[in-house]
């Protein structure tokens, strides 16, 4: 199979005093999807921008299809399609004009650019809107056009930076399906996401990054096995009640994490574990006032892997920082 489609080694990048990447490394095999998973500000966008030759790294190596992004950016550009975080399309052109422009600037001839544009508009459900100005498009249509523009020259490697952020659920599912089809056809994809669910649905491998470093690499099932598929949240009336329940649970196979007066118990057995957990609590001096089950999230992965919550979720938890069990 030869070299991986994407090779990243010890990549570092700072903006003045702000360190975005502190030496990250990973590889992506040809014809697979890798999800770059991490909270805001973790370095996902910087990584993808360097791979797409939009930014220069301070240090380290990045190669796409064997071509070095620093020494041969022109060579890399022939192999890649890139859709950044914001729908980078011209609002005062029509959808088709946008695609034809990007196609022509990607070295397709005028004829071929036009043919590919029409094909892609159809594939992306934009045929009816193809001759309308993009400023009349909805956010979801804009995003679809943006991803289509990354594909117009049919690159073997595509970079998608948070492709489904801001999309309605239907468009999100549709885009996932489209990415799966592309990869089935041999394309290699690197996409960034904040959603574990998205990485789970699409990625063959997930690279979790935080504060510019790789925290963990693995397949989605392997990651979930470490975190559990479900999280049971037990809410107590007071912190003292939660304390009592926590020490009682400590004698059971379930390890709980404290967040104020909430106990979180991770489970590999989905919601079936709820009964066992409640049974384990039987005889404790306090009983929960509320029980909720939810699917494991990125925050849970971070909690499990690093012992700290993501910044975004820490801010979202009322009453301060969610702390994992040490």
């Amino acid at each position: 199979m030869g070299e991986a489609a994407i090779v990243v080694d010890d990549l570092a990048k700072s903006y003045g005093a702000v360190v975005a990447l502190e030496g990250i490394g990973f590889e992506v095999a040809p014809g697979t999807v890798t999800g770059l998973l991490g909270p805001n500000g973790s370095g996902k966008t910087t990584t993808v921008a360097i791979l797409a030759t939009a930014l220069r790294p301070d240090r380290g190596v990045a190669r796409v299809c064997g071509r070095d992004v620093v020494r041969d950016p022109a060579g890399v550009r022939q192999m890649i399609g890139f859709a950044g975080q914001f729908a980078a399309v011209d609002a005062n052109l029509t959808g088709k004009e946008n695609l034809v422009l990007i196609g022509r600037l990607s070295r397709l001839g005028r004829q071929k650019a036009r043919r590919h544009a029409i094909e892609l508009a159809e594939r992306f459900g934009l045929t009816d809107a193809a001759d309308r100005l993009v400023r009349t498009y909805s956010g979801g249509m804009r995003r679809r056009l943006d991803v289509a523009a990354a594909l117009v020259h049919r690159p073997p490697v595509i970079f998608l930076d948070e492709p489904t952020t801001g999309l309605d659920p239907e468009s999100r599912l549709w885009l996932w399906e489209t990415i799966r089809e592309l990869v089935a056809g041999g394309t290699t994809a690197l996409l960034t996401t904040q959603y574990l669910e998205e990485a789970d649905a699409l990625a063959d491998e997930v690279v979790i990054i935080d504060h510019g470093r790789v925290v963990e690499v693995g397949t989605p099932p392997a990651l979930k096995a470490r975190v559990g598929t479900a999280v049971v949240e037990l809410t107590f009336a007071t912190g003292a009640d939660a304390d009592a329940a926590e020490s009682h649970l400590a004698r059971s196979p379930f390890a709980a994490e404290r967040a104020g007066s909430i106990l979180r118990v991770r489970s590999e057995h989905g919601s079936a574990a709820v009964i066992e957990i409640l049974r384990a609590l039987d005889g404790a001096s306090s009983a929960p006032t509320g029980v909720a089950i939810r699917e494991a999230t990125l925050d849970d992965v971070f909690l499990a892997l690093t012992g700290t919550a993501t910044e975004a979720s820490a801010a979202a938890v009322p009453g301060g920082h969610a702390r994992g069990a040490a």
Partner: protein
Amino acid sequence: MITLPASPSPWLDLAPGASSSNRVVTAVTDTLAVCGRNLRVLSRSPQALVFATVQPVMFVLLFRYAFGGAIHVPGVPYVDYLMPGIFAQAVAFGAMGTAVGLAYDAKSGLMERFRTLAMSRTAVLAGRTLADLVRNIAVVVVMAGVGFAVGFRTHAGAGGLLGALLLVTLFAYALSWGFVALGLVVADPEAAQGAGVPVMFLLVFSSAAFVPLSTMPGWLHVIGAHQPVTALVDAERALLLGRPAAGDVMSSVAWSVGLLAGFAVLATLAYRRTAR
């Protein structure tokens, strides 16, 4: 008609035109593609066209009919003195559109996308300034028509008019590179407009565009005598009035070529900086 590619794996049918393509041909075709896009966009944002033409027309009417009666320039009907200034003012204020448009591209992420395409690096800026050149030619032609409608006459035939408009166009081309640099540095459409207006206002109104420098206080006279808009309008007037023009034309061309060279370097540096 939609024809699917014959390749069994259509998404791998690739490397279009890769290494064989000639760099110069690539630069030219890409510049034309970017230019075409900008002209198309311009034609669809009427406010930009209005800004480019309606405002100078209002200045023509204002100076021709409201203020003009009070301004006396020895030996020349005021309308003939005014129009060279109007041409310069129209392209100077229109040049702001370059910075605004480029800042919009930078903000929307389009510049970033261009950097990831296998396109000529120079085409992004060259295509933008070429489109502005076309726009400026249209603007000076329209303004010449407006001038004739309000009584402006050339005293040196079509050659004099053509020479004057060419000088204006060259100056405009140099300015648009300066505004490319500004647009790239501020990367925000409103900020680009805000930064551009005072500079152009000072440059145009401290020049001999509307009134002779001799009527200005000494300090302003000194500023006005040493700046490109005065050099341009002096050369235009010499050409249009059929006076000896060589010295003034040389001076204006020198200003424009010097500014063009300096601004092109600044714009290129600003463009490279955005990739860091």
